[in-house]
């Protein structure tokens, strides 16, 4: 166990898999000579050379497709999008070629590829640069979608993703890169579809991941301090597959549900979770679930507007109080 940064955990996961399997390589913009736009691939070029750590032109459609093609013959590409906002110019490759090749070839060609990079509103990057792509990609059968919250999860989930035979969308939050946490040095594999209770509680279930999960945790602490409310924070860790049983189990205990995401509300992950919960356990709910999301508007540049649009601990706390009928 060592206390390392989120970005270091990702770096460690990639290096360990590079060492284990010569078919693993990394391609993306500025990943090699620049050491990564956000320094996630720091030192990897020096260690593995230019064939395994590959700088690409600003051609997301091109190098995403390159990765898929290489994966079709059994290579294990890790394609870094500087941010997933830029994956939208490669959308057809990610939602058609990657997830449907295995199916349309009748199971002949699997596509073991990992698309990774930043998702979620950064620091005042305005509407086109601030996408939370969780919903866009979770919508698509054939893809798997992973969102780590802690350095521990980051390492364990990325290693699993690289070894998985299916295309994996691996979403990172810029805000988390610098966070530190305990991470075991050697082998660490976290299975997909297993939620993690980030905070035990009895009064309300909050389902949250990544940036939103940290907001939920501080909201939970605040509510406990101020009002003795015990919030359970459940981190699904993977959105596809989704650990519905764990969510239902928690709700059976608490009777209330709040979801948190930085994405747009409409047809979002919150909507999906709430719909599944209502379908399977409406009777366990003592109030209607509440989804906390970014407001249904383009993400603005101006700082106060940005913080008004993207949900933080305060809005999560408000939602929890409302969900459990709490009044001071």
């Amino acid at each position, binding site marked *: 166990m060592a206390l390392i940064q989120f970005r270091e955990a990702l770096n460690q996961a990639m290096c360990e898999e590079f060492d284990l399997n010569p078919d693993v*390589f990394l391609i993306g913009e500025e990943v090699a000579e620049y050491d990564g736009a956000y320094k996630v691939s720091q030192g990897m070029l020096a260690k593995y050379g230019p*064939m395994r750590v590959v700088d*690409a*032109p600003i*051609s997301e*459609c*091109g*190098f*995403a*497709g*390159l*990765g*898929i*093609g*290489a*994966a*079709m*013959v*059994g*290579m294990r*590409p890790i394609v870094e999008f500087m941010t997933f906002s830029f994956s939208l110019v490669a959308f*057809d*490759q990610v939602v*058609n*070629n990657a997830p449907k*090749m*295995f*199916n*349309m*070839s*009748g*199971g*002949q*060609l*699997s596509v*073991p590829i990992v698309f990774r990079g930043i998702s979620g509103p950064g620091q005042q990057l305005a509407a086109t640069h601030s996408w939370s792509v969780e919903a866009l990609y979770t919508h698509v*059968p*054939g893809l*798997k979608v992973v969102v780590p919250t802690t350095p521990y999860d980051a390492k364990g989930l990325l290693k699993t993703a690289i070894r*998985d*035979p*299916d295309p994996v969308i691996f979403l990172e939050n810029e805000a988390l890169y610098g966070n530190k946490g305990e991470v075991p040095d050697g082998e660490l594999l976290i299975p*997909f*579809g297993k939620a993690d209770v980030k905070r035990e509680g009895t009064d309300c279930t909050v389902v949250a991941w990544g940036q939103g999960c940290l907001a939920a945790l501080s909201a939970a602490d605040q509510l406990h301090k101020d009002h003795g409310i015990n919030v359970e924070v459940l981190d699904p860790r993977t959105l596809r*597959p989704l650990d519905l049983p764990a969510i239902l189990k928690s709700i059976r205990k608490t009777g209330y549900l709040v979801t948190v995401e930085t994405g747009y509300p409409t047809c979002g992950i919150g909507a999906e979770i709430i719909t599944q919960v209502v379908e399977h356990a409406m009777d366990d709910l003592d109030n209607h679930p509440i989804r906390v999301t970014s407001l249904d508007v383009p993400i603005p540049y101006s700082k106060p507007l940005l913080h008004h649009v993207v949900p933080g601990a305060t809005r999560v706390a408000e939602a929890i109080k409302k969900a459990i009928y709490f009044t001071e």
Partner: protein
Amino acid sequence: MPAAITCADSPPTSGVGPERTKRVTTVADSHSTKIEPSPSQMIEWYRQMSLIRQFEVKCAQSYQQQKVGGFCHLYVGQEAVAVGSIAAARPQDYIITAYRDHGHAIAKGMEIAPLFAELYGKLSGCSHGKGGSMHFFDAKKNFFGGHAIVGGHIPLAVGLGWAAKYRKEDRVTLCYFGDGAINQGSFHEALNLAGLYKLPCIFMVENNGYGMGTHLHRASAVTDLKLRTGDAYNIPGKEVDGMDCLAMYNMTRDCIEYCRAGNGSMFLEVKTYRYRGHSMSDPQKYRTKEEVTKFQEHDPIGRLEKLLREKNHIDEAKFNAINEEIHAQVESAHAAADAAPFPPLDDVWRDVYANPFPPYLSR
């Protein structure tokens, strides 16, 4: 058109420097020293082209009988392109193409029974009925589809080339697409990557003059397609007569040599023509019967037959034998497909994930 192979008009080398010049000559030279293929080789090409032709004639019938669904794009007229070029490739070389893929699949050695079955949506189809006409695949034979989004497979070809280079394997990737695909961004990004990384890929535009109902000159600002990649991507472009199986064979062989020598990628403008409509539902108002007949006079199968006869490589009996064998082959494959069972409905949950999770597991 159909024109002779014009090695002369390789792209202008100005501004891209000596190495570029070297490249072009490489191909030109090797090309000038043609190797005459053996009679048995050419007879095999004749057989393959005829098989593709008869296979598709049967497809058309079955489509009219509504036993085949979806979009069905026939290759009739273009057979020499796939047969001649793939004849020059080796089993380990990668082949990938667009949705007009029947010819390439057969030329790469796929049995026609699983192809008919795929068209019929049957379990015994090469994709178990998941893909249909536009999505033939045979991973074992290094045939990577069959792709329906125009231009979308070209970056995949770059990935195949990348894998070969990365693994230091002696493989060349042959990527086919239509003249309409040239105007997709994916073509541009893919060719720049191939030119930049010097990948062993041959990009072949099957220029049959039309993208659906749109003539090349109404879709492309430059109609001399072989020029579009030299100055743009440092990938030399050449032109070849796609109605001539022998020319396709020789040119492709030279390009493969060029790629194997580590020179990078090549671009081939293949002049060809489709006799049938774009797909099965195409009134073809955009061209005249005369235009079609003009090209049919240069039919690739007829031309090769003529050659073989002139050289006395083959006699009447042999011809009949071949064609009867093909006929029998098509009929039995078709009958088998017709009789074969559809996939069980639960198969919809199959092959969604290689490493499935509930609900895919529970099914």
